[in-house]
């Protein structure tokens, strides 16, 4: 099996001239789970947007390598095609586009990338979709609603995880997939993430709280403060943070 991974080296990123990321290095292999924890405003979401190539985020220094290819200058869709995925903290609304049509569209784009991949029919896709939505305890009616329009916080998060499972990327950045979820929804979302991990997805999980890490077990935990990783460790670090907070790590 190929050795698929994402390597972030000394990544420095600014937005409108203001430096947010001040040298981040991280290496994530397929199937690994890296939790990134940190207080508000530490630059965690900036990291996720920069990884995905948002045009407002300027890379000042450092490199991004996905499966041995430099992806620094690639557009978001080219990064997606190469196996990178971001589950948004705040997914956007696409009025007038049904979940069903949207998902079939992106699924067929993904399939077209693989050798001899033929687009699936509406019927085939709907069968697959119904099954996957069932696993995330999403009601069938959601498929006919417009993407994220009028969705509750929990519905939005599930739709992000549904896309993760359907697209099955090499590396997924999950930006606070747990925020705003009650305990039942948290379990359902976590099960979805775990299914993806079992299929070999490498995960960067950005979160405030250790709560989700009870359900999705990280291999590594990184503490993120003021645009940098200030401490890395194993799962036990999450427990320590839960008890002590972040203040003892602030410089």
């Amino acid at each position, binding site marked *: 099996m190929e050795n698929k991974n994402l390597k972030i080296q000394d990544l420095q990123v600014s937005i409108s001239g203001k430096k947010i990321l001040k040298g981040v290095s991280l290496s994530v292999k397929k199937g690994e789970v890296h939790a990134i924890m940190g207080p508000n405003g530490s630059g965690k979401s900036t990291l996720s947007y920069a990884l995905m190539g948002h045009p407002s985020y300027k890379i000042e220094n450092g490199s991004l390598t996905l499966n041995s290819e430099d992806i620094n200058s690639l557009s978001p869709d080219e990064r997606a095609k190469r196996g990178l995925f971001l589950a948004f903290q705040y997914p*956007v609304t696409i009025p007038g586009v049904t979940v069903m049509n949207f998902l079939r569209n992106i699924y067929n784009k993904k399939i077209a990338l693989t050798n001899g991949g033929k687009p699936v029919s509406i019927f085939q896709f709907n069968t697959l979709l119904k099954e996957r939505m069932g696993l995330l305890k999403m009601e069938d009616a959601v498929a006919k609603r417009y993407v994220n329009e009028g969705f509750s916080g929990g519905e939005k998060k599930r739709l992000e995880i549904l896309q993760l499972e359907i697209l099955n990327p090499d590396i997924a950045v999950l930006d606070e997939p747990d925020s705003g979820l009650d305990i039942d929804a948290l379990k359902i979302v976590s099960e979805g993430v775990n299914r993806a991990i079992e299929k070999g997805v490498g995960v960067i999980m950005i979160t405030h709280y250790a709560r989700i890490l009870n359900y999705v077990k990280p291999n590594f935990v990184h503490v993120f403060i003021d645009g940098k990783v200030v401490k890395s460790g194993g799962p036990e670090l999450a427990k320590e943070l839960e008890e002590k907070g972040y203040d003892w790590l602030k410089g």
Partner: protein
Amino acid sequence: MTKGIAGIGEDYKYGFKTPEKYVFKSKKGLSKEVVEEISHLKGEPDWMRKFRLKSLEIFLKKPMPWWGGDLSDVNFDDIYYFIRPSDKQGRTWDEVPKEIRNTFDKLGIPEAERKFLAGVGAQYESEAVYHNLKEEWKKKGVIFLDTDTALKEYPDIFKEHFSTVVPPADNKFAALNSAVWSGGSFIYVPEGVHIEIPLQAYFRINAQNMGQFERSLIIAEPGSFVHYVEGCTAPIYSTNSLHTAVVEIIIKKGARLRYTTIQNWSKNVYNLVTKRAVAYEDATMEWVDGNLGSKVTMKYPAVFMHGKGAKADILSLTIAGKGQNQDVGGKVIHMAPHTSSNIVSKSISQNGGRSSYRGLVKVLKGAHGVKSNVKCDAMILDDKSRSDTYPYMDIDEKRVSIGHEATVSRVTDEQLFYLMNRGLSESEAAAMVVSGFIEPIVKELPMEYAVEMNRLIQLQMEGAVG
């Protein structure tokens, strides 16, 4: 991240020309002689000849509209007012002159007729070259003819309704049409007859400096239903053409009529059209008005609700691109109690195009229990483009419920980023957002047109990204 959006509708595939082999072509310009000539060539009754001449006088007296699109470039002396394309109208496509038939083949009309239409009329320049209604509908008493033929074959029913909805003095262009009208559709649906699949007419301009003035008259008897679809295209010329139609619709008690237009004239056509329906008790009129082409369009489909419980639905979809001004909307006149209206307008302006929603909601005194709702959504795709809303209201009754809502939206960078993140290219992402924006109206189109509309947007977005 907006370069991918430019160019919806910029790639016009209907602009081909066909050599002219006409039976008759009037000389350029408008005069009493030209009007007399048209009437004479058609062998019309005297009342129609007089009607035309009176209308010409009204036209000459009325000033040009001071509002709406810029019409200063319209030169009435530089237009051909009547072209007879063929001396015989076909009942089968084989009877249509070969070159004209090829044109309609290219436009996919015979194919659409076989697949999903109850009847088809095809007008080329001033007159219909083909008209056919499937036998099962003829047997039920449905009449579907070009308007010239209807005047000859059904003079009484024609005269009873003609010009009762849009009188010549209504506006300058209604007067012009009344003077030189030629062709158009005449539809009569007997009481209780439901025509389940659409009737379609296709209007093609081919000659340069052409003026097309079709006149349609539709009568839906009580409890009937019909869906009429019209499409139109023209070749691209450097000089202007003029399309000035009048459509009159009468919907009797409990009947329902849907009128769908896919206007896709080339960008040298001035499209100045008067469309109006009268709806009696519990009748329903639905205008689905799609405007993609033309240089300037001024068109405000109207419904006069005469009878209590009448309903009006106006769905307007507009795309204004480079060099285009789409001044469109709708008018609803509530003349009776418990009438209701719903206007939904969606416009896309891009590449310097300008679109306007211009609408009127009027409630007469005594029309209590009226409900009216107007929703205008504009999508502006770049800084060069413009969209305006002119919602007029004239309410003379207190016990009414009136709503108006207007929004302006853009394809946001965040939407593009989100969709690109899922593997869509920038143009695919933009096309998806635009398709979603117009979806509430596209879903009302017959499936074949909805598919075409989405394909058009998809294709042209792709073409726009180099």
